[in-house]
């Protein structure tokens, strides 16, 4: 996303940049194709042994199935005369061979199905995990423009396209090719002229396949975009259902969604129609080849240049040669569809991390919480600077209240400390170590941020608090809840701490959600705690309880508190007033209140609003 607008170069990753585009220029198209092929090969590599076993099993099963009719022919040709002559051993032998072939065909196919599913499911699991891990690693900057719906599209409908390819059997392609190779070779060995006819027939097949490849590539690309749009729209509507209904958007949404569904349908239909030409065209080429082989062969027979028996055999081979073609066409079709999906997935996977993990992390086993901003500047993406040159020292253990109007840069400052973003220039140091040199584990143990939106995951209340520290004991979890005054309402829920927040009786109010998220932070017990508007939905008694909890919690740790309600300031050692990304006032609450600056005015106004 960060590279948007620059000239495309092939040697650098393109990421999700071209995701919505369908008509790619030749080079770009080739580059994304290569990217998707590399990913597919990479995914299949660990499965290669199982993969080749699959091919072997298919060949065995096919061969046994083909052997059946041949054995019956022997039975009729030689078994019956022998039996009529009273010799039944031959018949028993033939019967035995037939049974063996039957069991082998069945067992081979059965084993193949299991093994193929193992390969296919292992590949899918691998890819799911890669995509999930990648989306978790990508910075917030990325997530702010790449919607959840698109990630879900990548993880669902794109993966299904790949699944179809794997299930339709890459292995059946391998066995089909083997089959065609054997048949073709046999034909050449039998009669070179008939072989030549087949060789000529390969030319139109090649042309048709190439035509299909070019056309279907564009259509399937379009299909991925259309289905992703449909999913994005669906997810957004369901997530915002409350506003949709409150503002009567149902009808307008219906129209929009129906439009997107129709786009997707049209695209589907176009791919089907393309297939509807491709498939019969191949069939037709096969049939015409048989006709030509018959005409030439028959003519030669009539002139005595060819045995009838050989003609029959060559016709049979020619016909057989085209037998797997239908299957191959189906395979190629799902290959095209999966490639388009892998183009998108591989784009997401190669997206560059803007907040990169430290390559050679400096350990910080016992963080004290001493924070230094050194000549920090910062702007979102290529936008204007939000923080123009910022210097600040927060000694360990200090509680700092950040005050200022919306847009003054308070939240940005907080996000930089939590390393949701990286500074543009300068550095932020924790205990003298640049944040960018800390391992993710050390950083998260040292710095925790509680945001205004208190998101709860499905699961129990206990799980949600334990997110602060997954190895915490039940007592520790309850102590954290008690400290912020959440314990009382939690135990009053139907299953107490084990109440599922999405289920019966698990409904919690906005304020209660914030209390749960506060308990998380208590449990995490970091050296540096950042509270960004974390108490906005609390009622006054709730806030008061949290305040008391905070007083003891923040006693010996560094804290940055952003709050519009100045009640928090009472527990702060220091107040920073920000405006336009700069600190305009800095001092103890008492000093600032008694002065005549901005904070003093703000505090007076806030004081007046209380009762």
């Amino acid at each position, binding site marked *: 996303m960060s590279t948007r607008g620059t000239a495309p170069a092939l040697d650098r990753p393109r990421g999700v940049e071209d995701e919505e585009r369908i008509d790619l220029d030749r080079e770009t198209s080739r580059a994304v194709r290569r990217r998707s092929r590399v990913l597919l090969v990479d995914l299949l590599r660990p499965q290669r042994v199982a993969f080749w076993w699959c091919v072997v099993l298919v060949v065995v099963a096919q061969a046994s199935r083909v052997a059946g009719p041949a054995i019956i022919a022997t039975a009729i040709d030689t078994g019956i005369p022998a039996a009529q002559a009273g010799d039944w051993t031959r018949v028993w032998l033939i019967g035995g061979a037939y049974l063996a072939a039957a069991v082998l065909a069945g067992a081979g196919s059965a084993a193949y199905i299991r093994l193929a599913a193992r390969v296919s499911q292992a590949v899918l699991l691998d890819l799911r995990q890669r995509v999930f891990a990648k989306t978790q690693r990508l910075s917030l900057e990325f997530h702010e423009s790449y919607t959840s719906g698109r990630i879900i599209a990548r993880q669902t409908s794109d993966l299904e396209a790949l699944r179809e390819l794997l299930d339709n059997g890459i292995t059946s392609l391998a066995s089909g090719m083997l089959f065609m190779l054997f048949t073709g070779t046999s034909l050449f060995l039998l009669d070179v002229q008939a072989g030549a006819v087949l060789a000529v027939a390969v030319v139109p097949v090649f042309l048709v396949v190439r035509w299909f490849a070019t056309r279907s590539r564009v259509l399937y690309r379009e299909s991925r975009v259309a289905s992703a749009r449909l999913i994005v729209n669906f997810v957004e509507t369901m997530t915002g259902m409350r506003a949709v209904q409150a503002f009567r958007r149902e009808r307008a949404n219906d129209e929009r969604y129906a439009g997107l569904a129709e786009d997707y349908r049209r695209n589907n239909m176009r791919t089907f129609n393309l*297939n509807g030409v491709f498939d019969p065209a191949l069939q037709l080429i096969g049939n015409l080849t048989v006709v030509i082989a018959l005409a030439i062969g028959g003519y030669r027979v009539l002139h005595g240049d060819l045995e009838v028996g050989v003609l029959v055999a060559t016709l049979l081979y020619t016909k057989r040669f085209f037998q797997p073609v239908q299957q191959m066409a189906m395979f190629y079709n799902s290959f095209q569809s999966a490639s388009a999906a892998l183009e998108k997935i591989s784009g997401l996977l190669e997206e560059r991390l803007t907040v990169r993990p430290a390559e050679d992390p400096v350990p910080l086993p016992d963080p004290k919480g001493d924070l230094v901003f050194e000549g920090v500047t910062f702007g979102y993406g290529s936008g204007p600077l939000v923080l123009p040159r910022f210097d600040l020292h927060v000694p360990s253990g200090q509680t700092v209240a950040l005050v200022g109007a919306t847009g003054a840069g308070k939240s940005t400052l907080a996000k930089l400390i*939590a390393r949701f973003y990286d500074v543009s220039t300068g550095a932020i140091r924790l205990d003298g170590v640049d944040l960018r040199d800390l391992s993710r584990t050390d950083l998260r143990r040292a710095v925790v941020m509680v945001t205004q939106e208190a998101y709860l995951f499905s699961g129990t209340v206990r799980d949600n608090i334990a997110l602060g520290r997954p190895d915490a004991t039940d007592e520790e979890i309850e102590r954290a809840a008690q400290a912020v005054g959440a314990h009382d309402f939690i135990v009053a829920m139907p299953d107490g701490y084990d109440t599922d927040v999405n289920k019966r009786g698990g409904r919690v109010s906005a304020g209660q959600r914030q209390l749960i998220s506060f308990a998380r932070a208590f449990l995490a017990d970091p050296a540096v705690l950042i509270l960004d508007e974390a108490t906005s939905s609390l009622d006054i008694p709730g806030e008061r309880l949290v305040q008391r909890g905070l007083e003891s919690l923040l006693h010996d740790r560094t804290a940055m508190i952003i709050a519009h309600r100045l009640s928090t300031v009472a527990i702060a050692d220091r107040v920073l007033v920000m405006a336009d990304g700069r600190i305009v006032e800095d001092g103890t609450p008492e000093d600032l209140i008694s002065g005549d600056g901005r904070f003093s005015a703000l505090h007076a106004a806030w004081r007046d609003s209380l009762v």
Partner: protein
Amino acid sequence: MSTASAQRQPTSDTPTIATLARLLPFVRPALPRMGAGMLAALGAGLCALAIPQVLESLVNGPLAGAAESGDARGLWTAVGAVLGLGLLEALFVFARRRFILTPTTHVEAQMRTSLFRHLQDLPLAFHDQWPGGQLLSRSMSDLSMLRRWMAFGIVMLVVNLVTVSVGVGLMVATAGPLGWVYLAGAIPMSFLSFRFSRRFRRISRQSQDQAGDLATTVEESVHGIRVLKAYGRGPEAYRSFSAQADQLRRTEMNKARQMSAFTFSIITIPELVLGACVLWGIWLVTQGDLTVGAIVAFFATAAVINGPVEQLGHLLSMSLNAKTAVDRYFEVLDSPNLVADPEEPVEIAEPRGEVRFEGVRFHYPDAPPADLVRAHSQVPHEAPRAEVLCGVDLTVRPGETLALVGLTGSGKTTMAALVPRLFDVTAGAVLLDGVDVRRMTRHHLRTHVAIAFEDATLFSASVRENVLLGAPPDASGDDDLERALEIAQAGFVHNLPDGVETTIGEEGLSLSGGQRQRLALARAIAARPRVLVLDDPLSALDVETEEAVTARLREELADTTVIVVAHRPSTVALADRVAVLQDGKVTGVGTHSELLADHLHYRFVISSLIEDEEFDRARGVRA
């Protein structure tokens, strides 16, 4: 964390025929073309069968003993026939695809939009219970699975069954007793198919549910990304996702095992029967009860129907998956709408804007039974009761601004949501100008009642579209937009890159909490409602902005009835009167100063200035 449950929905297992009957209304318009497509498929099959026949007769006829008595005309006739059949076959294949595929895409799109429409109609109570991934998987993967089955599965199933029946008929006709033996093989096959269907259906359901849950987890992991990042819980989320994805993998493997076992029998049993036929057939021939010609014809036919029989396994599993998809689809489409429009709706052209709560009781449809809650509630606190509201009586006068005050979790938000019927009361009634809101259509009611939520939902659209979301159609001009933005103190939008045309929401610029709230407020104002419901809409604003918004609201909303959920005195300042919500009832109504003087609970909830001892006493007193 992130462990959604697969057992949320009852696994319905309706008879297959009943399931298919449900599809009929959607499929009906496509039926003639699908029938034509099936005929085309049969035609293609016949051509394919006829080509070898022509070749055989050519070899046996004109070409036999070629060198001496070559019959050139016969050869060219045969070549012509093969050519004709070859062209015809390709044409039939082409026709089959054209006939069947287009209508199936229409059926799919139609079912997809119907589901969407129904979901938008269903009340919030439904959406609270159904995770997004489950709905999405129904709308996308289930429906495309169904489409594939209609386009390919059902057609091939019918064609194959016809082929097999005709084939077996021929076998019985040509080789009598041998044919009956072959047919006897159908007995274990039907038994095994039945058993397979039963098992496979259960696993197929499980796998589709798990896929939906996995989608839910993905959705949550993205929506909750800030929390996960703030605590560095990416690795834990990854582990839990992996475990869930692995569970799905194992279900799929289980499915493959069932499929594998069934495939073994469906291939082996007919072949074993044929093996027996070989032996018995030869014996019959030696006894003179059967001719060699008959036995040849018998096995030739068996070879032809072998392929279709083997395909039946695959087609059966495909059909079972499709059935599961249909079941899952109709589970949602059949969910009754408990907040529906009345049969004979009442309309109020120009409401005065009086809102009355009469003995309103409310519990969420999924609330646990009352006794269960009581057993756990040893704590004297504003506990979640089975009933959130138990008998609320309150009148909001036309044009009045009333603040709802109560502890967090006391039901203020719920009460606010009852007015525009986002939920319906369980007992009692909410009346607008004396008319029960349930007697109006939701659409009509919501043109009069607008609501602004605390956590603002912005859609991926321009600022203008977001603000004018509920505006009356005649008034989507700039004046309304500017007025709403000005009242809500949302002038900051003019400084965005494209001003009011800037795209915001998930796909656009991200805004701060305070900015979002102001836009949500502007949206509610732009709707120009008679009744405006504000659910703590100023919580994320700084003191100065809040003051400015409050002042402007007081000026502008003089004629509008406003119900405002409030947590702090600065919001209460908007109100003419205040109602205190406590233990599911309104325990006091009055002006701010009246209540502050004589309502203990109110003072406890709203006052920051009471001393700590009084605070602790009040906490105890509420019991």
